[in-house]
């Protein structure tokens, strides 16, 4: 072709379309299965929803504020560790799930005589775990609000748990803060006591120091000493003047005076020493004094703070967590969520169904469509025979051309005839009709092909070489006695004796005859070859019905002698590999395979290729769909009538 690329593109487009159609076909084909699975899973989900124990969720709303303690400036951090609001909030939320809180709550519940005792939880730890599974904390975004949700089988209990948990949470939080408050009070007390002792100790030390150094009060002692010194010095001066102004004093007197003077000088000297000593002690003295003062000052401050604390601590409100909405027993259970469960069941069923459908399709290696014939068997496709509506029995199908020479199935057989005659360069005189397995429609096909050939004006002979399950003589009404092939091959009849006339003028029949015990041996008789040669001289077409190839070699013997073989394949039942093996087997012994006739194709549920056939049937012959339908009904009636007739017979 001139435009290969164009064709290629078209092919690719085609392939895509075919793929799509293939998927659509699979879905359509397995629709009952998919719908069934979907209904089942939906039903299971529904039953589960109905049967499952109901779970209620009680909800209490709390407001968690970041309150502050106004009592002691700078003491806030002692209560609220962590600076940022977010951290604070998260911490509070996490606290709801703390084991200590739950434990406290469980104790509270026990004390309220409504103990929490879930199934299978004996130890306290198990109980806590069980309860933790029921609690959910849902902060309301961008607010200080928190929803505390508790699930339970009973709505009342759920509400009770939620409320108790909130209560315990608040209580624990308050207790925590109050303990800090109490701690500060105690701290003040202990500090004050400690400092009292320190002051006392220091005063003791000071006292001892003063006793040791003979100091009453340093400044007073010093002043006193200095005054004494002054007085002594003036007394000394007076004494010296007295001595100097009274030369005439007696020696005794003078001696006494001198002695007093010396004493006085001695006394002055002593006083001077004392003053120096006191000066030296003053540093130590002051240090003692300062220490005592400092301790006293601190003690005073402590006392005043402690006073302040005692007077204001009663005003402190640690409740920065409030219950906004108390939990009420919910009226409707949150679990099982029926709609969600049922919807999930439905979707799951659908997915499962589609999955199974594709899996079955994947596993299914039967030949179902003309494409399968061309792709897997690699032999020409000669035509298809659609499944006949179920009301018609086998006998009706077998006489299809005879009964309805103008029907679509007869039309198909004529097309098959044209295809057989035209699609091969070989002579088409002796045709073997066979199949891989039994009951694939060999005999029906053989009879109908023989019939369309006879009706086309060819002198046709049909030979029933299926000497295992011969059926042709049952289908075609024969004249005369039923001597057949076996009679001739065993030498018990002449050719003319075994050829029977049929209702159709140009169609002749050789029935199988009595069933022999050893068909293969009989078929191997040289008389078979003679028979075929002679018949070829007399008849235009010879159709030979044979047993299936997979079990016995009868068909192979005949295939070797005939011009070719037509394989009948029952759509949806014959497996690719088995059919392939059968065809290859015949080819190996020298048989020529004209092609495959696909039997029993459900055109209303077949593959993409047959989709066209479906359309073809619907719109065939341009009379529109409605008339076609009427036709079908009529035919149904007719066939019913016929069935009745036969049953009456």
């Amino acid at each position, binding site marked *: 072709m001139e435009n290969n690329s164009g064709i290629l593109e078209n092919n690719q487009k085609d392939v895509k379309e075919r793929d799509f159609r293939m998927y659509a076909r699979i879905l359509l084909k397995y629709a009952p299965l998919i719908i069934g699975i979907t209904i089942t899973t939906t039903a299971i989900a529904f039953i589960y929803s109905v049967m499952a124990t109901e779970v209620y969720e009680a909800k209490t709303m709390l407001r968690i504020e970041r309150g502050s303690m106004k009592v002691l400036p700078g003491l806030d951090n002692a209560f609220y560790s962590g600076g940022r609001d977010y951290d604070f909030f998260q911490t509070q939320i996490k606290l709801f799930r703390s084991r200590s809180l739950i434990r406290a709550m469980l104790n509270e519940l026990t004390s309220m005589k409504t103990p929490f005792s879930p199934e299978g939880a004996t130890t306290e730890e198990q109980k806590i775990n069980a309860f933790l599974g029921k609690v959910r904390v849902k902060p309301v975004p961008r607010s200080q609000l928190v929803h505390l949700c508790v699930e339970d089988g009973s709505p009342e209990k759920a509400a009770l748990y939620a409320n108790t948990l909130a209560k315990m949470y608040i209580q624990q939080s308050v207790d925590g803060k109050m303990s800090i408050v109490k701690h500060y009070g105690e701290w003040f007390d202990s500090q004050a006591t400690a400092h009292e002792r320190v002051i006392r100790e220091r005063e003791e030390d000071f006292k001892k120091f003063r006793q040791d150094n003979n100091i009453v009060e340093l400044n007073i002692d010093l002043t006193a000493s200095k005054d004494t010194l002054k007085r002594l010095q003036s007394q000394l001066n007076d004494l010296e003047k007295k001595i100097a102004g009274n030369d005439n004093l007696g020696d005794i007197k003078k001696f006494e005076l001198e002695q007093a003077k010396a004493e006085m000088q001695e006394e002055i000297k002593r006083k001077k020493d004392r003053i120096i000593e006191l000066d030296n002690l003053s540093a130590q003295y002051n240090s003692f004094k300062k220490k005592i003062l400092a301790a006293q000052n601190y003690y005073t401050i402590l006392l005043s703070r402690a006073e302040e604390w005692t007077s204001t601590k009663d005003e402190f409100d640690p409740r920065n967590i409030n219950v906004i909405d108390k939990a009420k027993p919910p009226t409707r259970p949150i679990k099982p969520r029926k709609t969600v469960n049922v919807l999930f069941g439905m979707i799951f069923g659908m997915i499962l169904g589609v999955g199974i459908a594709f899996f079955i399709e994947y596993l299914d290696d039967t030949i179902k469509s003309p494409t399968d014939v061309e792709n897997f068997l690699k032999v020409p496709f000669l*035509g298809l025979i659609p499944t006949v509506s179920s009301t018609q029995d086998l006998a009706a199908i077998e006489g299809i051309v005879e009964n309805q020479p103008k029907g679509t199935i007869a039309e198909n057989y004529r097309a098959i005839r*044209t*295809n057989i*005659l035209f*699609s091969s360069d070989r002579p088409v005189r002796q045709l073997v009709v066979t199949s891989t397995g039994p009951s694939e429609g060999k005999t029906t096909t053989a009879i109908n092909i023989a019939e369309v050939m006879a009706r*086309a004006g060819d002198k046709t002979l049909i030979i029933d070489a299926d000497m295992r399950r011969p059926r042709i003589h049952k289908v075609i009404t024969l004249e005369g006695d039923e001597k057949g092939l076996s009679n001739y091959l065993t030498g018990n009849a002449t050719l003319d004796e075994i050829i029977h006339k049929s209702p159709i003028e140009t169609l002749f029949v050789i029935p199988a005859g009595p069933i022999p015990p050893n068909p293969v041996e009989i078929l191997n008789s040289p008389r078979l070859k003679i028979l075929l040669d002679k018949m070829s001289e007399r008849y235009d077409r010879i159709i030979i019905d044979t047993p299936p190839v997979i079990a016995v070699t009868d068909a192979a013997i005949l295939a070797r002698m005939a011009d070719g073989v037509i394989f009948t394949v029952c759509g949806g039942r014959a497996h690719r590999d088995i059919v392939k093996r059968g065809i290859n087997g015949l080819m190996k012994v020298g048989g020529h395979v004209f092609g495959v006739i696909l039997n029993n194709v459900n055109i209303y549920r077949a593959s993409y290729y047959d989709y*066209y056939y479906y*359309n*073809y049937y619907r*719109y065939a012959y341009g009379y529109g769909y409605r008339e076609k339908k009427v036709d079908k009904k009529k035919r149904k009636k007719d066939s019913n009538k016929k069935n009745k007739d036969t049953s009456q017979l």
Partner: protein
Amino acid sequence: MTLWAKLFKINKKSIDFIPPGRWVDLHSHILPGVDDGAQTLEKSLEMIRYASETGITHIVATPHYSDLFPTPPKKREAALKLLKEAVCDAGISIKIIGGWEISFTDVHIKRILNGEDFGISGSRNYTLVELPNGINKASVIEGFFSLMIEGTKIILAHPERNSLIQQDIDLIKELRFREVKIQVDAESIVGVHGPTAKKIAFELLKRDEVDSLSSDAHSLSGYKNYKKACEIVNNNFGKEIINKIINDVPSSIAGIK
């Protein structure tokens, strides 16, 4: 066609379809009482009158020659003669030409090969052939070859309705390469033969692989649909194409000068 496209088409201003001076219908079941077409002479005349009013100038009467309707040639000759006279008497200026629609089966092909003439009279051996249900590609190629080698030229009737073509539209290209003429049914364009036939017909028109658009009329509605189809093709593919498929190519096939 999607709903949107349909709505869109309504809004689109249609181009007026002006019938060409010569309009040849290559495929019609107009002969009275021979096949599943017109059953009486009155019905035939009714159809012809309508066709004439539409602007059709030549009708090739192509009764079936198939398993379902094995019209005997003598019967056709008689009907043809009868109709021609009736048309003449009625004063309708349409020319009726004799022809056949042969079903492609071994029996019928053999008759052609045996020398019987099923061609359109006046043409150089052009024969209208329809493919039956269930035929395969190999026999089409083989059978057409055997006909053509004997000098028969083939007009393939309504391939868009055939399952083989519907699943392998590229076969048309191959057949045209072998000088097979392609005739599409008007009723396929209108949609009477279903969505697939319609799709394939449009695709063939798009690919410019249609040689003749003919009525395949079995009754008066066939000609009504023929007119409708011509308008649709005129709107969608233009004046040149419609002129080609109802005038130029059919005229040369039927040997009309």
